């Protein structure tokens, strides 16, 4: 009876999923309701979790509930702690959910809602969730070892070295891109800048409260900080309306870039924990609250998507970023589908906290599904906008023209009608001077979110508040990624330099702290500066670079996973990681080829450098710098591809050796120890 009911129930989910996916995929010409995307996503995730992850858990990984995890065997109350599975799920999700699943899908919406939605659903179920799940389990079975350590142990020294370089490169590029998104969101926006500036005294107040008044009551003080931030958003409108105050908080992009670099250096090098730790909590509080609110808002208000399923820009002529749907849609959306960066979290804190092997399925596979759902929400937020407005916000002046009239005419000429008056009215409604050329995805997401909420809560009168709330939410948690990332990169560089000269490895030696902090900030600051000065808006060059490096890191993670699966004598099931690996190799290598060698100067770095160098007028120093930047981007992309190719070759040698019987298939797991915890359902 139960079995019949289960078959009927899952059959219904499959049928509903097929209808929803079919509707999303086949609908043309008419606007579609966002609930179809929600239904398609829910059914795909449910089926993926129930059947695919269960298959992987049972047939490949053979999860063993009786095997003690490092959290139990090595428990020290600090790094290794047996943690409730739901609590760990929340912790893991909070660590993997960053700005990526919000920004990437907004940018990829230039192709229409369909490519992004399909990639987010299929990518998550068959690639991203699988990667996070298997890497988490393999790390659990190796005492919580990191991805780089596992790559070194299982593939060889080349694997370990490349993983290390790839992690450092992706961190630096990520930080540069994140900073650029904040700059583009806050430039010439006194309201937004004031709100973000106010988070600093609020964080300091929270820090004093935590240390002196109610030690350790983080939730309580975060709620208080949140109320104060809402007050700052409310107060921002008066700042923007007062000419003297507005001038004080109005910054150009280069000035904001310098301020952010100074902030990054201070956050890494100075003992400013009183500011950073409370801000981190405040950011997490706002992030989780906003994601939950957006989810509820989309389901309750079920808005209509105005963006078509596919736009004309699938041919590679898109204004947001140049490049054809394949491969660029698949590197633009990383975090919502598959992100190599997640492998660092799955082999970082989480494996040291998990109580049972059987829980890796829920935490690893399940948390990535939730991140993918956030990406679906971002697609909806971008696609509820009228396409003309979406393109006006996201297109750089170098593509659509400098004046509002020229931009409106260009975008209308593409078949997405918009007028300068529409844009002026929208800018006025959200309390900005202009919304043109606000590349980077964050402003478009903020307008979309404000659009969704203002239709129910407060109407048009609250549109400006919702917009600045969304902007504050994104900028605040991007800044926390920035300061945390700068510190992590600093530690990594210090660890490496310690092998060359011991004192440089000491994290308490101030000359080393200052030197390595300056090195890291200079590295990501260079990319930020490049983006700020780029006439095409910076995102066009930097986001693909970030996507490529992130997906290349996922390639390394999947090489490690496949190697271990083959060593476990489960080669016949290795397709589970081999198929996403092959897909990622195809996507990243094709994208890298285009970014380096494509003859279209909007796509290829070298072509862009050639066009600039061939200018008939005398070349200015700024142009010389642009030429150098393009060549540098090409070199970085090429170097990453070469290194990942080395890992692939090393992995292939391992696989062939093991399958031929020339090499011993020996996994480097910690020995089995029977758990002493009471058996519970995983």
């Amino acid at each position: 009876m139960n079995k019949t009911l289960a078959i009927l129930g899952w059959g219904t989910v499959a049928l509903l999923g097929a209808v929803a996916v079919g509707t999303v995929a086949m609908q043309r010409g008419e606007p579609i309701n966002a609930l179809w995307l929600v239904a398609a996503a829910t059914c795909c995730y449910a089926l993926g979790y129930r059947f695919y992850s269960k298959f992987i858990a049972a047939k490949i990984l053979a999860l063993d509930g009786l095997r003690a995890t490092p959290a139990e065997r090595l428990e020290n109350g600090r790094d290794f702690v047996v943690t409730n599975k739901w609590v760990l799920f929340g912790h893991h999700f909070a660590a993997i959910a960053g700005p990526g699943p919000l920004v990437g899908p907004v940018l990829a919406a230039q192709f229409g809602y369909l490519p992004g939605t399909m990639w987010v659903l299929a990518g998550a179920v068959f690639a991203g969730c699988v990667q996070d799940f298997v890497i988490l389990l393999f790390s659990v079975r190796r005492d919580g070892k990191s991805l780089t350590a596992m790559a070194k142990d299982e593939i060889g020294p080349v694997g370990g070295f490349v993983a290390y370089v790839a992690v450092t490169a992706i961190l630096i590029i990520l930080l540069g891109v994140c900073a650029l998104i904040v700059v583009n969101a806050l430039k010439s926006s006194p309201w937004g800048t004031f709100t973000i500036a106010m988070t600093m005294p609020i964080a300091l107040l929270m820090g004093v409260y935590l240390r002196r008044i109610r030690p350790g009551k983080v939730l309580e003080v975060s709620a208080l900080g949140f109320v104060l931030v809402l007050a700052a958003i409310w107060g921002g409108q008066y700042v923007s309306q007062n000419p003297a105050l507005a001038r004080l908080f109005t910054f150009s992009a280069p000035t904001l870039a310098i301020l952010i670099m100074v902030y990054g250096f201070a956050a890494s090098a100075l003992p400013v924990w009183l500011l950073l730790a409370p801000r981190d909590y405040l950011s997490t509080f706002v992030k989780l609250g906003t994601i939950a609110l957006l989810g509820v808002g989309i389901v309750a208000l079920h808005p209509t998507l105005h963006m078509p399923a596919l736009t004309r820009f699938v041919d590679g002529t898109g204004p947001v970023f140049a490049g054809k749907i394949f491969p660029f849609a698949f590197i633009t959306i990383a975090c919502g589908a598959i992100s190599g960066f997640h492998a660092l979290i799955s082999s970082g804190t989480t494996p040291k906290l998990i109580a049972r092997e059987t829980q890796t399925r829920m935490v690893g596979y399940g948390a990535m599904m939730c991140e993918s759902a956030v990406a679906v929400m971002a697609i909806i937020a971008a696609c509820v906008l009228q396409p003309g407005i979406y393109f006006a916000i996201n297109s750089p002046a170098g593509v659509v023209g400098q004046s509002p009239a020229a931009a409106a005419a260009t975008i209308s000429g593409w078949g997405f009608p918009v007028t300068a008056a529409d844009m002026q009215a929208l800018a006025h409604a959200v309390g900005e001077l202009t919304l043109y050329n606000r590349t980077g995805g964050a402003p478009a997401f903020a307008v979309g979110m404000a659009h969704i909420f203002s239709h129910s809560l407060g109407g048009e009168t609250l549109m400006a508040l919702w917009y600045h709330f969304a902007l504050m939410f994104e900028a605040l948690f991007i800044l926390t990624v920035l300061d945390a990332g700068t510190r992590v990169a600093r530690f990594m560089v210090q660890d490496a330099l310690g092998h060359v000269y011991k004192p440089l490895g000491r994290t308490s030696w101030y000359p080393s702290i200052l030197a390595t902090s300056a090195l890291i900030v200079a590295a990501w600051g260079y990319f930020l500066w490049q983006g700020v000065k780029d006439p095409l808006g910076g995102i066009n060059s930097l986001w693909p670079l970030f996507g490529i490096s992130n997906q290349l890191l996922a390639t390394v993670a999947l090489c490690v996973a496949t190697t271990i699966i083959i060593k476990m004598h489960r080669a016949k099931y290795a397709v589970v990681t081999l198929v996403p690996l092959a897909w990622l190799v195809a996507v990243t290598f094709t994208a890298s080829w285009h970014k380096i060698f494509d003859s279209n100067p909007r796509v290829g770095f070298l072509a862009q450098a050639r066009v600039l160098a061939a200018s008939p007028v005398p070349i200015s120093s700024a142009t010389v710098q642009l030429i150098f930047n393009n060549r540098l981007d090409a070199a970085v992309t090429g170097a990453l591809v070469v290194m990942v190719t080395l890992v692939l070759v090393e992995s292939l040698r391992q696989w062939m050796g093991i399958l031929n019987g020339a090499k011993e298939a020996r996994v480097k797991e910690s020995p089995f120890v029977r758990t002493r915890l009471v058996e519970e359902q995983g």
Partner: protein
Amino acid sequence: MNRMRKMIGDLASTAVAVLIEILREIFDEAAYARFLRRSGMASSSEAYAAFRQEFDEAKARRPKCC
């Protein structure tokens, strides 16, 4: 009917308890409680300062995803 109501009530209170525990873990309140247990200290400004000193060094090494 009463049994049903009790079951729903129990479920709701469990869900709230789990949610609070998740938030306590995410916001490091649980880590602070563990620190107090491990070090045998009572909550105070000094204890919290000691916790942060120990905890922040480890936390600073954890990457946050994009």
